[in-house]
């Protein structure tokens, strides 16, 4: 089996239990520094918050289903959209992606753990504490005038709404501090991912043989350094404003509301790419395996990812076309924003070319990737529309924008994440997820998604702004809001099927074996689930697809490099 080019003796070699049976299970998980356990904790934690923030979305859709509804008060509604946005971005999307990164990166580059295992544990726990702190706000002080409990200033917390005079209680402080903590955790993990990818690769794995997934996580992590620091700085400045009498954002004392917008969006827009790049990573791994072809244009994919990373750091003010930047400023940000579509287009075409001439096998992970491709295409195109400033003057802060970014986040990020769950679940648990339940989940989610987010564009075009707790009858918005609500319920049911599938398959799923998908990257060379420290012997590779080389000694990738 072993040839001169591969050293994958790790197959079927599990490490013997080296530790004496000691501390309890809970103690083990609380104190672990193992990248796989930390990765799993990230993922489970994110799933819990996904359900919470999903319920918040459902309540909002119930409130908006009919005009002049009184299901919830305006105060509660404002808290709901603030908590929904903050939770989904900071405590669902970031942790779940970092969870996958933590779990997969060492396995894919043939390493035994992350570069800094203790920093890894620290980052997880500080992020986790941030999420808990945010929800503790429900038991704490008041927010805007006439409002109580949880933060209600929007996930973007525009100054001066967060100033002490407009938000007198402590709810804004809960928001600030929990986002600050999450930012520290995010930065720690990003440092870890970059260090791991650059220093821990196994023998023979040059940078250009690194799986694309690892490349994309590296780019996203580098963006974290550039994007999260301004956010952290802004949070500290806001705390100073609120408690030590500084006036960065305090407009009544001459501070600047626009300054906060710059700080927030220079984080906020790169953040979208920090979230979408790892999901490109999943698609990059899944599409080739299920098309039975190597990824088309590996170097171009790497270059496009790095290009997206750079360009997306200079597009933030397209969130601010309506604040009066002036024609010169607007023109610059229109250009930067439109330019991002070029490397993104390259990725789209390369995926298409990977499928072209392949033999596409429609298992559940691939289905989700197909959904991703179409939805991301549409999301990208509505993005180009919004990047044209005059178009944006009409539609910014309307439901058109809400539909656009949910197309990116749900139709893109969440779909590819679901694909990743079905694809790597056998590796993590040693069991396959139910294909039948998976197809139910996929089709219901597709239907629900399109009912909700296709039709959400329309009230936006008809003038419905975001963040309103109710609306008058007779503006032509009623029908669309009912359809949106029905779609949301279908998506909720589909998500419950998914969660049930996760639990059911853990106990009843068929045995997976080390390599159920006949895949090509290193994580499939070790057992499922992988043993402690992953590989008994350090693997050695000679191409980007070591397992392909092993399975096809007559037609090895390494010959084409």
């Amino acid at each position, binding site marked *: 089996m072993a040839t001169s080019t591969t050293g994958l003796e790790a197959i079927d070699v599990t490490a013997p239990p080296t530790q004496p049976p000691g501390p309890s299970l809970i103690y083990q998980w609380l104190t672990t520094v193992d990248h796989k356990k930390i990765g799993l904790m990230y993922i489970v934690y994110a799933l819990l918050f996904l359900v919470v923030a999903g319920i918040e979305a459902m309540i909002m859709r119930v409130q908006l289903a009919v005009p002049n509804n009184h299901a919830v008060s*305006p*105060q509660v509604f*404002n808290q709901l959209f603030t908590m929904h946005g903050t939770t989904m971005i900071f405590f669902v999307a970031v942790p779940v992606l970092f969870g996958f990164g933590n779990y997969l990166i060492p396995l894919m580059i043939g390493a035994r753990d992350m570069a800094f295992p203790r920093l890894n544990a620290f980052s997880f726990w500080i992020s986790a504490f941030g999420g808990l702190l945010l929800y503790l706000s429900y038991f704490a002080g008041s927010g*805007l*005038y*006439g*409002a109580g409990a949880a933060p*209600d200033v*929007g996930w973007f917390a*525009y100054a*001066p709404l967060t100033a002490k005079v407009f938000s007198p209680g402590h709810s804004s402080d809960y928001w600030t501090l929990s986002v600050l903590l999450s930012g520290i955790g995010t930065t720690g993990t990003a440092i870890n991912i970059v260090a791991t990818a650059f220093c821990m690769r196994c023998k023979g794995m040059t940078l250009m043989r690194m799986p694309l997934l690892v490349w994309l996580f590296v780019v996203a992590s580098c963006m974290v350094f550039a994007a999260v620091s301004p956010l952290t700085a802004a949070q500290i400045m806001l705390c100073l404003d609120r408690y030590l009498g500084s006036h960065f954002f305090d407009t009544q004392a*001459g*501070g600047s*509301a*626009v300054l906060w917008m710059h700080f927030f969006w220079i984080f906020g827009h790169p953040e979208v790419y920090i979230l979408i790049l790892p999901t490109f990573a999943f698609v990059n791994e899944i599409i080739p395996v299920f*098309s*039975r*072809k190597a990824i*088309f*244009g*590996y170097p*171009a994919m790497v270059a496009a990812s790095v290009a997206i990373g750079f360009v997306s750091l200079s597009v933030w003010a397209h969130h601010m076309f*309506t*604040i*009066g930047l002036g024609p010169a400023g607007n*023109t610059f940000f*229109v250009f930067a924003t*439109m330019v991002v579509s*070029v490397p993104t287009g390259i990725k*789209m*075409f*390369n995926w298409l*070319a990977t499928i*072209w*001439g392949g*033999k*596409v*096998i429609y298992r559940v992970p691939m289905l989700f990737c197909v959904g991703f491709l*179409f939805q991301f*295409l549409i999301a990208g*195109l*509505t993005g*180009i*529309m919004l990047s*044209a400033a*005059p*178009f*944006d*003057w*009409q539609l*910014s*802060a309307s439901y058109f924008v809400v539909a656009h970014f949910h197309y990116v986040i749900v139709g893109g990020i969440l779909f590819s994440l679901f694909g990743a769950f079905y694809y790597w679940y056998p590796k993590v648990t040693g069991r396959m997820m139910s294909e039948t339940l998976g197809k139910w989940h996929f089709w219901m989610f597709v239907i629900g998604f399109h009912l909700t987010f296709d039709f959400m564009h329309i009230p936006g075009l008809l*003038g419905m*702004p*975001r963040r*309103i707790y109710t*609306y008058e009858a007779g*503006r032509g918005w009623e029908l669309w809001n009912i359809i949106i609500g029905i779609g949301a319920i279908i998506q909720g049911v589909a998500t419950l099927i998914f969660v049930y599938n996760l639990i059911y398959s853990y106990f009843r799923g068929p045995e997976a074996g080390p390599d159920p998908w006949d895949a090509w990257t290193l994580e499939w060379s070790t057992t499922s689930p992988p043993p402690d420290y992953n590989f008994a012997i350090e693997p050695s590779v000679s191409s980007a697809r070591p397992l392909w080389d092993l399975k*096809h000694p007559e037609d090895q990738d390494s010959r*084409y490099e």
Partner: protein
Amino acid sequence: MLVLSVTLAIFLIVGGLLVYALIKFRHRPTDSDHEPAQIYGSTQIELSWTVIPILIVVTLFLTTTRVIWQTEAAPKPAGAVDVIVVGHQFWWEYKYPKLGVVTANELHIPASDPSHPTPTYLEMSSADVSHSFWVPRLAGKTDLIPNRVNTMWMDPSQPGLYLGQCAQYCGTQHAKMLLRVYVDSPADFAAWIKKQQQPATRDLSGNPLAQEGQKIFLGTACISCHAVAGTPANGRFGPDLTHLASRDTIGSGAIPNTPQNLRAWVADPNAMKPGSLMPSMHLNDHDLDAITAYLTTLQ
């Protein structure tokens, strides 16, 4: 329009290719077990789908830039009407500096004749937090930001009532910070301005209840926030009430302006618009009747 057709064309082409590839190249049960041919890339093809999108982007960018400069750097004609807009939590203040009119929530502007343009130029700021002025059928939105002056213009040709609302989250009642813009024919506009320029002082002797209402109004905290021209009331924190009864709505477009609604509003604004910054004055029934009677005289 160009943006729309270009994106639609891209969608049809790329989406069509995707559908074709996904169907044509599916795995069939009759297929052999061999893996398909492995293709790692092609410089020429990749170059073409880099260069073509760049050309599309440049085209879109140039057309967009033209619209931006035409809109934002447009010269201001002599016949323009100036309005100062100030955003408040959760209502709109309008001042016509050249015409000496101050009003709230319902903006009147003249319809513009292309041969004789009278566009309206808005100079916008905010008294508290950020707001955004958005009447979709008249113009794009512009934010009202404290410590900053933004400008925009509208040039409507069709008279009528145009609805809109605040488009920047501004607090508890962001949803009911509604906008009503009345585009009047030039004659109607001139008549409206003339009426608004009059002070409200009128002979109330024929209406003892309103007379009493005025006394209560001037004797309570109402006047620390509200102004009625021609009386000692000159508060600026709330809407100017000089011609309150000439408006169709109260509560920034939230509620029709009827005596019953007005009375209920004065009794407890937070019951009708939770989060409104106007407090309940805890007036008794008689005083409420009197104040309502007075306010309805402010034509």
